[in-house]
């Protein structure tokens, strides 16, 4: 065991996989050379694996995704990085029309065993272009898996699983978590399944489902409220498809559910979760499904005061859990 940050855990996952499989390559804007990415996730990789396997791409997301798709068809477990999740939009066609449907449209002759990593989320004063949660754009496209790790342990284990996946994975990393959470994780090679939500805390008063930065708030709130209420905390992990079984089982334990996302509520991943619960677990509900989410406003503002007002915060989460527990 050794203590790693979320970012170091991701770096470790890529390093270990590149050592294990020579076909793994990584590229994106500022990924290569001594810089190793704007956040430093790929730091040291070019030095160890050379610029044939770790390299910079032009500022063109469509090209980054297209290159990954092509390398995938050639049999590489390629890792593409989009510098910010806000920049992913030019790549939508390559992702949705090519990577996602490769296995399906070729009846399994060609596949797309690639990972597309991208940092998302606010709270870093990044303004419009560096703060958004864009996962909802892809959530709901069969053939494409969207996951996000929300703990240090999962950061390493899930990225390794994603790299080994024979089908495309859109891998969202919360940029606020990069350096803000640290944990002791095993030094050995381990993986974490991509399709299973994770029940982190067990309880029978309220079930709270979250991912990303919001999960940290939920865990803090559960700790703060532990003398009054027992809270079931679920890390969603897979944003699409949703792990229905785990979600429903967790709901049935308490009958009360709070869903937390920092994304704007309408059309969010949590709306999908809510629909599943409403459809499958109505008769187990003891309270209306509650979704705590960002405002339905075009994007994360830049000014500190406005960013604070926009983001769901610790107090909001604690208050919502308490209200639901007391309902």
């Amino acid at each position, binding site marked *: 065991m050794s203590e790693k940050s979320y970012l170091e855990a991701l770096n470790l996952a890529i390093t270990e996989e590149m050592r294990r499989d020579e076909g793994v390559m990584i590229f994106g804007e500022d990924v290569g050379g001594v810089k190793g990415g704007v956040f430093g996730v790929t730091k040291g990789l070019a030095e160890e694996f050379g610029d044939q396997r770790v390299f910079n791409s032009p500022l063109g997301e469509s090209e980054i995704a297209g290159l990954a798709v092509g390398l995938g068809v050639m049999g590489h477990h390629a890792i593409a990085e989009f510098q910010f999740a806000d920049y992913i939009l030019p790549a939508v066609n390559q992702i949705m029309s090519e990577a996602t449907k490769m296995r399906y449209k070729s009846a399994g002759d060609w596949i797309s065993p690639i990972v597309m990593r991208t940092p998302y989320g606010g709270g870093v004063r990044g303004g419009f272009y560096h703060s958004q949660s864009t996962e909802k754009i892809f959530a709901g496209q069969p053939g494409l898996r969207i996951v996000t790790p929300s703990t240090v342990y999962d950061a390493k284990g899930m990225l390794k699983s994603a790299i080994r996946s024979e089908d495309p994975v859109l891998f969202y990393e919360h940029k606020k978590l990069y350096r803000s959470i640290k944990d002791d994780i095993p030094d050995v090679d381990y993986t974490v399944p991509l399709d299973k939500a994770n029940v982190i805390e067990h309880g*029978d*008063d309220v079930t709270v489902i979250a991912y990303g930065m919001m999960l940290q708030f939920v865990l803090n709130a559960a700790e703060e409220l532990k003398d009054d209420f027992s809270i079931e905390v679920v890390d969603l992990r897979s944003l699409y498809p949703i792990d229905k079984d785990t979600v429903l089982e967790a709901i049935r334990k*308490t*009958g*009360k559910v709070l869903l937390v996302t920092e994304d704007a509520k309408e059309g969010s991943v949590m709306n999908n979760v809510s629909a599943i619960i409403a459809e499958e677990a*109505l*008769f*187990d*509900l*003891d*309270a209306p499904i509650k979704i705590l989410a960002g405002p339905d406003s075009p994007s994360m503002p830049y000014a500190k005061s406005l960013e604070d007002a926009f983001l769901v915060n610790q107090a909001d989460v604690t208050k919502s859990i308490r209200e639901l527990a*007391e*309902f």
Partner: protein
Amino acid sequence: MSELIIKMPPLGESVTEATVSQWMVKPGDHVKKYDPILEAISDKVVTEIPSNDDGVIEELLVNENDVVPIGTDILKMTTEGAVGSVPVAKVETRTTESQNSPSFKATGRFSPAVLKVAGERNIDLSSVSGTGKDGRITRKDVLNYQPKETPIISSQPAQLASEPVIRSTPVLELNNNDAVTKAGPVRKMIAQNMLKSIHEIPQAWTMIEVDVTGLVKLRNSLKNEFKEQNEFKLSYFPFFVKAVSSALRNNPKLNSSWQNDEIIQHKDINISIAVATDDALFVPVIKHADRLSITGIAAEVSRLANCVKTNTLKGSDNEGGTITVNNTGSFGSIESMGIINYPQAAILQVESIRKELSVLDDDTFGIRNKVNLCLTLDHRILDGLAAGKFLNEVKANLEAIDQNTNIY
């Protein structure tokens, strides 16, 4: 602060009226909130009605033995700190708020989860108090609900006779040595149910004799070991309950009831068993007896009998009975005419097992164990033929028991 009218609170789903059994307070008494003020009877339970507030009892508005609709004003009291009297209209508006138990305060709505759990556990939500927002009943409240210990009278459907309990005119002159005891609420309920059964149901009677030599041998060979392995004894009775529930599967007509000119054939086989105490008779129910082994039935019989003894029978233990099996043999009876447990279609009396010198199939003599089974049937639903078929199947089931019969 002012006058408060207490109303007869809801006593359960489908209960529309209740009998005022016994006042526990009189005018002038000081009571605290939740102190019992009245013992009321619906045909499911005897319930103590609590006071809604601290105060002094002013007037009892209904008399003992009155049958009153739910929601009737039953008592007037002055709440603590009252100065003078307050116009009646104002009193009324104040009291509508507090007429119900706190659980109804919230919205009068229950969540799907609450209704589901209450349905599964047969819990009457009007008796559950809510800990949620504004007194809402939460799923956890229902999960944690423990029924109050109230004597429960019978497993009859929730339908209270609107006439007061019938009191017969005395035909014997009282003499000085006679002890007079007022019939308690439980005794009165028994009287009422017996009368209802006799008045409404044309009851016919039949009896068969069964050779239970195999059963007696089996039970005697197992009983000591059984007693050591279990916390209860293996009596003959569970074997009879098992034989009846198996026979009911092929004779569903016996497992039915006559209600409002409709014959309802019940899918579940729930056997009411009569359990007597010194002064009352209870009819708790073995649910789904057809799914239980003989040991399973024995365990249930033992549990229910213990609950009767300790007065801890729950409402659900008394509900849903579809036919009654009565162990009259336990007190030595060899022949009896049961009164049907209304509104069921039949009651079977299991009499004493006795030794008898019999002529066997091969025309030799032998000592056999014999028992009489006496069946009272609702002649509206059943005829002799159906009853005979059923009894013969029960007989066959019992006579098939031998050393190889598995009781587990």
